[in-house]
């Protein structure tokens, strides 16, 4: 709106009154349009620009930055970690001029799995932007929640930092492979309706170094991270109960992202899909028909009583891939009543299996939602 006005002033044309009238019409239409549409939907045709798309997209209602990774200390001690920043739009243009007026809510989850000692610790944060206690910048990549932070340094390396009582992480991530854009035409379709989708890309193998603190003890670690960044406005539909999401990093350099939606009626959702990224970073979309995900064994959470399949068989016949995915430890459940209110399982996994008959191994992360409490479709509607 401001631009329109200054343009109007810049152009010296006859019939000022007419121009003024036009401006008023445009201004009215703009404010009307804003009030009506509120949040921008993720629509096909989106062109990613990685000079800016790492940063925040406040015109969309929902956005998250997701880091997971498997790391090893010098002495061979194995760890997994997850650090997630969420932004959920609440009121695009709050009428209250107070800094505390809530435009967005910022949530963050941190989890560290000490695989060798079977310990799992997690913490969460929830803030409004307020005076800057949480936020996400739009011009450069920096997202933070209190003193947890993810940002780019000058060399486009990602710096992660998050500590809670007695545990935490501080890493530097190299970009690794070029970003992989999921879905088609710039959107990863999640629901039947147009717009029930997200703009979704990953950096699937980011060489990572840094420090993990567990029970107050410091470990110098190295390994690979996986980063997901998604933004959109409406993701799921009510019938979608939850999803199972796999991020696998195989020893042969292949990365695999697979997710399936589970519907309330138990049927498989047609929007299930995946992406296969070869060692050079070339991505191929996998449709629902091209792979199968079969639960093999389950673990029942003593806290939420939810039953999570922690062991899976993953088959991609066209690629001759036959993998078994198993949790590094059973209890990697996050109960986040203090922020999202959602309980989910997100944990480090090990991968074994064959590719074209050859043995292949790998690591990765598995996320399972919608097993406890409300359907995810109700949460991320």
């Amino acid at each position, binding site marked *: 709106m401001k631009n329109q006005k200054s343009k109007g002033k810049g152009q010296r044309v006859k019939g000022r009154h007419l121009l003024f009238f036009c401006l008023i019409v445009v201004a009215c239409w703009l404010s009307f349009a804003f009030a009506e549409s509120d949040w921008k939907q993720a629509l096909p045709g989106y062109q990613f620009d990685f000079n800016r798309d790492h940063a925040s997209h406040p015109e969309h209602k929902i956005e998250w930055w997701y880091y997971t990774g498997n790391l090893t200390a010098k002495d061979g001690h194995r760890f997994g970690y997850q650090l997630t920043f969420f932004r959920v739009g609440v009121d695009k243009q709050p009428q*209250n001029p107070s*800094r505390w007026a809530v435009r967005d809510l910022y949530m963050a989850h941190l989890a560290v799995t000490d695989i060798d000692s079977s310990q799992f610790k997690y913490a969460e944060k*929830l803030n*409004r932007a*307020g*005076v800057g*206690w949480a936020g996400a910048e739009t011009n450069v990549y920096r997202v933070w929640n209190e*003193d947890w932070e993810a940002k780019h340094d000058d060399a486009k390396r990602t710096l992660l930092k998050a500590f809670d009582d007695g545990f935490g992480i501080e890493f530097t991530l190299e970009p690794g492979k070029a970003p992989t854009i999921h879905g088609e035409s710039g959107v990863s379709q999640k629901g039947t309706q147009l717009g029930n989708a997200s703009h979704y890309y990953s950096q699937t193998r980011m060489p990572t170094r840094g420090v993990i603190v567990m029970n107050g003890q410091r470990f110098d670690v190295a390994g690979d991270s996986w980063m997901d960044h998604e933004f959109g406005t409406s993701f799921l539909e009510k019938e979608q109960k939850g999803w199972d999401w796999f991020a696998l990093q195989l020893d042969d350099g292949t990365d695999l992202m697979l997710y399936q939606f589970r519907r309330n009626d138990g049927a498989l959702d047609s929007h299930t899909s995946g992406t296969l990224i070869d060692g050079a970073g070339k991505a191929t979309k996998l449709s629902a028909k091209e792979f199968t995900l079969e639960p093999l064994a389950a673990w029942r959470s003593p806290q939420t009583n939810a039953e999570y399949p922690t062991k899976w068989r993953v088959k991609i016949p066209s690629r001759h891939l036959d993998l078994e995915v198993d949790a590094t430890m059973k209890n990697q459940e996050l109960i986040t009543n203090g922020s999202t*209110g959602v309980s989910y399982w997100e944990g480090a996994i090990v991968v074994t299996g064959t590719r074209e008959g050859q043995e292949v191994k790998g690591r990765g992360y598995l996320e399972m939602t919608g097993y406890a409490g409300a359907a995810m479709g109700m949460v991320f509607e």
Partner: protein
Amino acid sequence: MNMRLFQQFILRHLFNERLRSVATILGIALGIAVVIAIQLTNSSSVRGFAAAVETISGKTSIEITGAGLGLDELKLRELGWLREYGFVSPIIEGDARANLANNQRETLRILGVDILKDRSIRDYKLQTEAQQNLTPTDFLTLLLDPRSIVLTEKFANKYGLTVNSQFTLTFGDKAEIFTVRGLLKNEGAARAVDGNFALMDIAAAQLAFNRLGRIDRVDVRLRDGVSLDDAEVAIKQKLPEGLNAQRPARRGRHVEKMLAAFHFNLTALSYIALIVGLFLIYNTVSISVITRREEIGTLRALGVTSKTILALFLAEAAALAIIGCALGLALGRLLSFGAVKLTATTVSSLYIAVAAAPPALSLKHFIIAFGIGLPLSLLAAALPALEAARVSPTAAMRGNDRLESRFRLRKLYWLTPLILLAAACFFAQQKSFGELPLFGYAAALSIIAAAAFFVPAGLFFVTRVGKHWLARFFNIEGQLANSNLAGAIPRIAISVAALAISLAMMVAIAVMIGSFRATVEYWIGQTLQADLYLRPATRSNVATDATISPEVEAIIRAHPSILAMDRFRNFDLPYEDALITLGAGDFAVLLEHGGLQFKTPREAEAKAAMRSAIGTNGVVVSESFTIKRNKAVGDEIKLNTPKGEVMFRIVGEYFDYSSDRGIVVMDRGTFAKYWGEQLPTSLTIYLKDGVNHEQTRDEILAALGDKYQVLIYTNAAIRNEVLRIFDSTFAITYALEVIAIFVAILGVASTLLTLILERRKEIAMLRLIGADKKQVRKMVVIEAAMMGGVSQSIGVVVGVLLSLVLIYVINVQSFGWTIQFRLPVLFLVQSSVLILLATALSGIYPAARAARMQATEQVVEE
């Protein structure tokens, strides 16, 4: 002690003399009741405040505050390190007025919080099933709309509100419609201020209170295992300039300190009634000793030891005192409701906005009642009881051991009062003890003691002089009354002293209040020069920080009749260990139109001094500031500002009677330099010549409409308002005094009754030699009135002396106010007449008893 003896000798006697017993018990009971009532009342205001602070603070261990006006919210960015210590929650807190059905109005304590943070500090339980166990996000959603509020179940039920009900809330001067989004169960913070508590989102509260950009404080709850002492010290060190860390209870202590002088004076006053009650005990026991010397003699002859006799009379006093104390406790609790009402206006208009019911009686009050009432009663009874123990058996039985009833003027009787008066002079010149005028009270007590000791001598002179005059005006009855009194000086002295002392206190307080009122009236005339005074409708006292909206200011400025306007801002500022009021006004406007009444420097120099303060760190301070803080013009004072500690120089000292806690006023420009631009809390408006004030006021009110709620006083109205508050402040004082006088008159009546009973033979003889009932009645009534007259005469003289102590010592030391002495002659004349009438009336029942005495009966007995 022999129980049977006690029963037969003491209890039976008390029962036979039940009128006097009842009077004594009532006297003690009233004395104790007044003391307890004042204790309860005093603790109600401080406790009400402290309890509200405690309940609302929840699990807060430390709060971060700014320099009087909260803190700039951007400073929170520098406070991220606080999270190492625990949970951190920014707070907006203030009062708003709810306009409810049937024009009912209630003050609500509003807490504006970031619910995402605050649930670590306070528990909020919502009422309905669906609203329980809300996630933080759900709870936040309830509060998101800027016109959302969560009330307590208790408040909502009282006014028939439910979820989704709408009602109008006034914040400062802004009235807005709010929607109830949830109801809090009666737990945690919701219990505060008797359920008049409401929860809002911090953003909504900022908007409503006009406090965008600032927060009132930051509550910090330390992590488990972190030491409070260590954390407090560490946090204080790390805090940037202008911020302070304190425990929430400190606010309660500030208030307690602020009210200390007011409470101390009320407490001192309350003990007067008790002292008068103790005179009654002394009186009663000595009368029962006097009237029963022969019986005592018989008992002694029968082998009862003198120790037992002593014990018997002490037990009598104890019995009376125990019943009196017990009754007093119950009565005190009842009286406290009235006392709270009487003091509420003072406390809320001068100190804090807390309307609290008096607390229930606690062990402390039982200890006060019995711990003070019983020993003092025994002490009062000790003298006559010892006297009784000394009675020699044979002499008493023979009847030639009459207690001396003739009064001889010994040196003791005039020397003691003189020595006591000298002591009073000495005490009056001592400095206060802390902020409490203990020496002032010592001086007052010395004067009272002097009066008490002087009473026998006073009665002696009066009966000497009265002989002639009474005979002349009241014939034989007058003469008889005079000689009766002259013959009974040792016995009536105590009652007269008790009455004289309570009357002296009455006079002293009347003189003090009269002088004070005259001083204030003069001050109002000098100081209140503006034509209109405007304040937000919800601003009931100096302590609330209700502000005036810029919209209101604009509307007023636009009115054509406005000549000039002073935007005044004030708020509480911690100074040393107490709270003072910091004010900021437009000195230029004040110089041109206003009329601060300066103490130093005077006249033109004062104006020059004020002018010099514009643009510099000069301040003018109220007299109570200089007196209480021991400062003078020219001194520097160190104030806490958001920019750290800053030195200010006192350029002038002005008279102010609106607050006793000390006021520091600076020019708006100086103020803005340190505190930033702030909304005013009141406006002083000067109108153009020839403009109708009332009409302008009405026009402004009409222009403001319903949206803005302000009170505008015309000059005449504000003067009345100030005097109204003044008068209400002293309502409690008069109430306490009336009780003390009532107790004293009770004493006179009971003494007279005893004298009559003792003199029944004499009266019978009078009747035999021809005196009729009417004459006997007249004689007794004259005696009563004479006792009243003597009491009042001593009372007036001593009262004026006491008033000097009150005005020049106690008042200055407790409140820091200069009062010009003025004698309220009319009041003194009126009260004297009234006291004569009242004492004469108190003689009517004894007179009737005397007149009913059958001449024959008594003489036949002989």
